[in-house]
């Protein structure tokens, strides 16, 4: 390559390090929520150190200090994350190394490498969180990094001289000289120019981003294995239930899913969102049937009108797709991600839900499920571990001996909950070694999972087939978007008992203890609602309204930005182009749109705006053109007056006009310098007005000038 190398060893002006420190401060503040606290803390130390180096002209740390620091950083990551790989550990390692690299960031080359690494670190925050405000903060950091890149790329003569000087006077005694020199080239303008240019670059990049975002073919991930810890932050229902599970979940105000109904939203007490169905009891733990179980799907007869809705499910790293009780799935095609419906009517996707997904639901509120019960199913639905909870078994045997029908047994159990001093609470006491006995006859304080599990235990002990269903109950209507927000705090557990002729029937023992839980939500039901997350409570109506509006914005963000995937992409293109688009065609559309866009952008950026020529020069150019046609060309080194004299001699007929024009032009140009130098506004105006007059004269003269 015959190109000239541009020196990369020069130190950029001071703005570069400030831009870098600003952007990294934003980035590390965001990481403070997701990484161990010592990582952002170490950044703060190195950033302040680097700031002092810049401000007080301290020496940069030598290798003997930097090398042990680097090793210590690696060891610290290893110690606190247990490995250097995995999502969290590798991000932490990168963050620590970038923080330390600040101490050796001084030349143009260092800055540019640093900015590129910081771009990577900053965008990586999205692995942890993708909220709107995080996105805005990331944009701010990217802007600042771009400004840093610009100021590192900017080199001028004084810059070069200063750093030459620094190189030759490396000794400490001369550092004051180079410091002064460095400060001398700090224009106040520089900040403005760099910020403006960075803003321009980002704004002009916006159309390219939009086109690529909409049209770039979305390949469903993952391409390779994802580290184990990648989804550790996701919460949701578990595949097993123990007392304490769900009430833990109830403390979280995180959104579980949102549901939009095509028709009116059903009443709160009808909103049972079906999740994992639990059959097996082992001590205090209840679990699902195995995935390999070969049971026929329970028969379903529906009545009444179907309820149609669309669910936007937050990722929870499990397989269940929540549906309103009870979903009817005409065919598995209508389900996303190769989902299937299990024998007990829970819908499971093939892979864990790790991204936000949207799917359609089709449910009936009136139904008959599993009209007949096979022997195998009956065995499963009556399974209990022997020799536990003797008091409970005694009670159940008593009911059976009283010749009660299953319906009576259910009523007996519910009236026990209703009439005895049972309390619905978020903070139940711990249960002893016979948990059901302890709960029913001793503590009598529990959350929904206590009631559901002890109820099912009672039923099974009394010979009534029963199972636990977990999921969510209720939800909050957002009037700003007319949809339902279901939070983790709405998690619930209830029971289904099998009755002859009625099939599996839902019984919610919690409603017996606390009817308001089912009628109007968890906040109304709990006496100790202070334990609930702020957003699930009923006080602060203003705050509530604000948060609901904000949730509506978030919902749009989730659907159109975060949830934009292959399906959304194809649906959108179909809507725009009014025909079905094959996945392969998107590539073609993308390429042609990008070419058109780049041509347009290039035209606007690269055209020569000659029209911007100032009127004085424009008139003079016209004059020169006329003379050039007459055979007199202005030489590069000639001044306007000198050339005027020469031209006047060459064209004696028009000598007066030519000399007049030349004199006018040079006097206007001279006055321009005076305007720049003039401080007093009055004097400034006077010169400017005079100049305007001269300009008009110049224009007229040039126009009238006629040469052979």
């Amino acid at each position, binding site marked *: 390559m015959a190109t000239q190398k*541009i020196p990369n060893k020069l130190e950029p002006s001071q703005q570069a390090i400030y831009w870098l420190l600003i952007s990294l401060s934003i980035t590390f503040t965001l990481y403070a929520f997701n990484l161990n606290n010592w990582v952002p803390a170490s950044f703060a130390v190195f950033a302040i150190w680097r700031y002092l180096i810049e401000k007080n002209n301290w020496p940069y740390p030598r290798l003997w200090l930097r090398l042990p620091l680097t090793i210590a950083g690696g060891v610290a990551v290893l110690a606190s994350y247990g490995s250097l790989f995995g999502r969290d550990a590798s991000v932490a390692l990168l963050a620590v190394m970038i923080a330390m690299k600040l101490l050796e960031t001084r030349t143009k080359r260092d800055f540019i490498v640093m900015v590129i690494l910081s771009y990577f670190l900053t965008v990586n925050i999205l692995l942890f969180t993708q909220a709107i405000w995080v996105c805005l903060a990331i944009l701010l950091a990217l802007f600042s990094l771009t400004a840093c890149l610009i100021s590192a790329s900017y080199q001028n003569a004084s810059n070069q001289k200063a750093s030459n000087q620094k190189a030759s006077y490396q000794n400490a005694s001369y550092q004051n000289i180079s410091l002064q020199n460095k400060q001398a080239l700090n224009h106040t303008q520089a900040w403005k120019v760099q910020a403006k240019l960075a803003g321009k*670059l*980002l704004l002009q990049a916006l159309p*390219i981003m939009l086109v690529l975002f909409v049209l*770039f073919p979305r390949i469903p991930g993952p391409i390779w294995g994802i580290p184990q810890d990648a989804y550790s932050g996701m919460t949701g229902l578990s595949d097993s239930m123990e007392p304490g599970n769900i009430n833990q979940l109830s403390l979280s105000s995180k959104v579980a899913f949102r549901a939009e109904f095509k028709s009116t939203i059903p009443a709160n007490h009808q909103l049972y969102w079906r999740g994992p169905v639990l059959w097996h009891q082992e001590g205090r733990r209840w679990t699902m049937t195995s995935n390999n179980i070969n049971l026929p799907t329970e028969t379903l007869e529906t009545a009444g009108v179907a309820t149609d809705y669309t669910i936007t499910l937050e990722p929870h790293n499990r397989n269940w797709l929540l549906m309103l009780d009870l979903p009817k799935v005409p065919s598995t095609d209508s389900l996303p991600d190769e989902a299937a419906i299990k024998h007990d009517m829970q819908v499971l996707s093939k892979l864990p839900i790790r991204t936000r997904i949207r799917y359609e639901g089709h449910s009936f509120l009136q139904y008959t499920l599993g009209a007949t019960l096979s022997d195998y199913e009956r065995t499963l639905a009556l399974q209990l571990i022997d020799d536990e909870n003797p008091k409970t078994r005694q009670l159940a045997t008593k009911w059976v001996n009283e010749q009660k029908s299953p319906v009576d047994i259910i009523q007996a159990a519910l009236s026990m909950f209703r009439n005895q001093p049972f309390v619905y609470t978020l903070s139940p006491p711990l249960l002893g070694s016979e948990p059901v006995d302890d709960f029913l006859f001793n503590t009598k304080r529990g959350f929904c999972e206590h009631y559901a599990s002890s109820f099912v235990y009672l039923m099974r002990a009394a010979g009534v087939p029963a199972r636990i269903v977990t999921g969510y109950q209720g939800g909050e209507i957002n009037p700003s978007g007319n949809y339902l927000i279901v939070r983790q705090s709405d998690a619930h557990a209830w029971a289904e008992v099998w009755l002859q002729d009625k099939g599996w029937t839902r019984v919610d023992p919690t409603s017996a203890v606390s009817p308001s839980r089912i009628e109007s939500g968890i906040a109304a039901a709990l006496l100790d609602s202070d334990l609930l997350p702020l957003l699930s409570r009923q006080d602060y109506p203003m705050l509530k309204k604000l948060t609901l509006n904000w949730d509506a914005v978030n919902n749009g963000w989730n659907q159109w930005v975060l949830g934009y995937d292959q399906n959304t992409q194809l649906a959108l293109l179909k809507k725009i182009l009014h025909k079905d688009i094959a996945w392969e065609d998107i590539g073609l559309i993308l390429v042609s749109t990008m070419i058109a866009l780049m041509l347009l952008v290039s035209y606007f950026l690269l055209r020569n705006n000659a029209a911007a020529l100032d009127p004085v020069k424009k008139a003079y150019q016209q004059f020169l053109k006329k003379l050039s046609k007459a055979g007199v060309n202005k030489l590069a080194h000639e001044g306007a007056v000198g050339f005027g004299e020469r031209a006047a001699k060459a064209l004696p007929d028009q000598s007066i006009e030519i000399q007049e024009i030349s004199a006018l032009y040079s006097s206007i140009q001279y006055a321009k310098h005076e305007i720049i130098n003039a401080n007093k506004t009055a004097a400034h105006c006077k010169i400017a007005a005079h100049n305007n007059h001269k300009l008009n004269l110049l224009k007229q003269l040039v126009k009238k000038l006629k040469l052979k």
Partner: protein
Amino acid sequence: MANSLNIPGKFKITSPKTWFRTAIAINSATRLSRRHIYILPTRFGWLFALLLLALLTGSINYSISLGFAMTFLLAGVGAISMLHTWRNLANLKITAGRAKPVFAGENAVFEINVHEENNRARYSIFASFTAGKPDVQDITAMGESTFKLTLHSQKRGWLKAPKITFTTEFPVSLFHVWAYAETECQCLIYPTPSLHSQTLPSIDSDGATGQLSTTQGDDDFAGHRNYQFGDSPKRVDWKASSREQGLLIKQFQCEASSTLWLDFNATTGNNVELRISQLTRWVVEANKLNLKYGLRLPQLNIQPNNGDSHYHQCLTALALM
């Protein structure tokens, strides 16, 4: 078409440098038009591309939609910066400026004027001769800047400014943009004054009509010499003597009273260059002593005179002989 088939016969493999177009000055001005401007990514540009690739695969792997958005935003910045870097150099007008004459062996400094005519400020424009030290300048909107490029001169005569490379990587250093330009700028190189000190020809020597003038008079201060017995105390420079060791006498010169002819024929030897070199030294010495001197060359006579313009006239004559 038939004609074009004959081309392979004429085809010559040229050096890589000639593969690039050069903006050649006509009427002393040239413009870096779009046909002259070349662009390639820098190694930072490649690193940036790697960054985009990493972000893209990450976004696909973790299915992060917002990751796609940020990746594409940065890709957009990369693409836009390519246009910005390109237009930072495009359409600049280049004119030749002055180049002060120097003696052969010294560095010639060429002034190259670059004019901005698109009403856009240009930043960090580098200009250099091939293998020369670059000069960097900003150019204000509608303004002009002067690049000073140095070139080591070797022999007397006109030294033409070689091809100039203009480069820039502003604003983001991801792309390297360059263009070649040739100007009509040239610098006059005077012959090197001979190192061998031969005394100035005198009026007596060789019958030539040269005469060494009286160099001591009362008009102009010309320097110091050590005190000698018999010097007038009025002439002792007391101030200077207090700084130095011993007494110093002020020396004065009067206007040269008689003329000195420096004749090409008065120099000896077979090597013309050495003889020119000798003459040059005489001219320099005579000028230093403020003598009135004339120059007699095989094809040219310069009448005796003194002063700066005469001095340069003589040196020019020697340079171009």
